[in-house]
């Protein structure tokens, strides 16, 4: 049981090592002649005005909230789905009611007009 996660951990290290090795190799082999023009930010016609790390209006703020609710819901639904064969019909219906409550929330957000790109 713990060995499984040991393998995942080892795999994580190896999976990180290969791309890093490729980058290091490229860094050793490639020429290094930086100049200000080469390192300037890519632009298309006119140069970028101001810095790039600006505050912005999150159009999908409500989407993010709905996403959070549904993603947490998924964690509850996976055990329900795994044990579905052993559960009595009553518990299955209860799971469906749980889904129904959340879908009702989705419909509420929808009717409020929040699922529109503004």
């Amino acid at each position: 049981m713990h060995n499984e996660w040991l393998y995942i951990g080892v795999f994580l290290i190896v999976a990180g090592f290969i791309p890093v090795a490729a980058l290091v190799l490229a860094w050793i082999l490639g020429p290094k002649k930086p100049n200000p023009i080469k390192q300037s930010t890519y632009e298309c016609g006119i140069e970028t005005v101001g810095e790039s790390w600006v505050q912005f209006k999150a159009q999908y703020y409500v989407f993010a909230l709905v996403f959070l609710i549904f993603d947490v819901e998924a964690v509850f639904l996976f055990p329900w789905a795994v044990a579905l064969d052993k559960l009595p019909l009553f518990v299955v219906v209860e799971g469906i009611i749980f889904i129904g409550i959340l879908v009702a929330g989705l419909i509420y957000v929808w009717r409020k007009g929040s699922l529109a790109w503004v």
Partner: protein
Amino acid sequence: MNFWKDPINVAADWLKNVFTGWGLTDPYATALVYLLGAFTMVALVMLLDVFLVWIERKVVARFQDRVGPNRVGPFGLIQPFADIIKLLIKEDITPAGADKVVYNLAPVLSLASVLLLWAILPLSALVYGVDLNVAVLYLVAAGALGTLAVIMAGWSSNNKYALLGAFRTVAQMISFEIPMVVALLIPTILSGSMSLKTVVERQDIWYVILAPLGFIIFLISAIAELGRAPFDLNEAESEIVAGFHIEYSGMKFGLFYAGELLHAFTFGGFMAVLFFGGYRFFGLEQIHPLVAVFILMIKALLGYWVIMWIKYTVPRIRIDHMLAFNWKFLTPMAFALLVVTAVMHKLLSGTQPWVYALGMFLSNVVLLLAALEILRTSARNQRRQEEAALSAIAQTSSH
């Protein structure tokens, strides 16, 4: 257990004995065997990735009525290696003002998140990395890491195009993960397990027959998760030039590219495992474990081909249309499918297998037809409203 029947595990046991013979205690010997196994797996996957570049270029060439790479080596097979050498000897440019740590970490994470998925992909009954009992959740989690890499790249590049690409990725990720999770619940319900190996073993009837709609939802949300056309808004070259990887060049760009191709192929593999019987093919898999691996690879390649087919055929979708499609059509349909599957599975359990399969298949078809009918009706109503408004304007202006 002999070497011919099960080469991988016999080799692993032999190696472990060798390491124990050197005086290593058990946890260290196991870890060392795992390290060698993981390294072999990753190396083979990277070799596969190199050939995926060739496959992708050949296939896109055929779709566009071209020949594709055909000069370097037979059929252009050496072309990707030439590309790698070119990428390696290019100058490593970091734009001024970029957040250097995050900027350099993003391509590594992009490829690593894909490689991580290969730890749980069951290649055959005996050849697999690890059979996690929460593999389905692991699949979602590792997939989200790839999205994080895109956001990191977009944010750290200090470029507004890249930033726009990252914003779009956030919108895409928070939308399409919901149908994907729900689509993953379908094989979980049908097999009663979250372990991918058990899912394959219990697929006497392919789940694509029991849940065709689940497969369609999984395919669409997988393409969105991959960020491939028609959902490649994070790199939409006609609007934001190259999106999140605009400031990347040389090997760093190469890692993003390799990661994207491998991600698509890997999802082909997971589609095969979850819906197309994985390494099983009418008993052929029992000949030899490597035959089973071959079967899975063929299925994964077919899945990859379907993803490429969609990419090179369908035009890019606008972002508000994409979000509306997800939240107002795909997500409700996915939840309806979940409820229908749960109820039908409960009602039909204990019946004949063919009754069960037929019931599942028909319920899916009925649900799809109903969903399309609702979509058609609502679109028609909307169009009528718009036409009525237009004709009202036309009447007032004629007076």
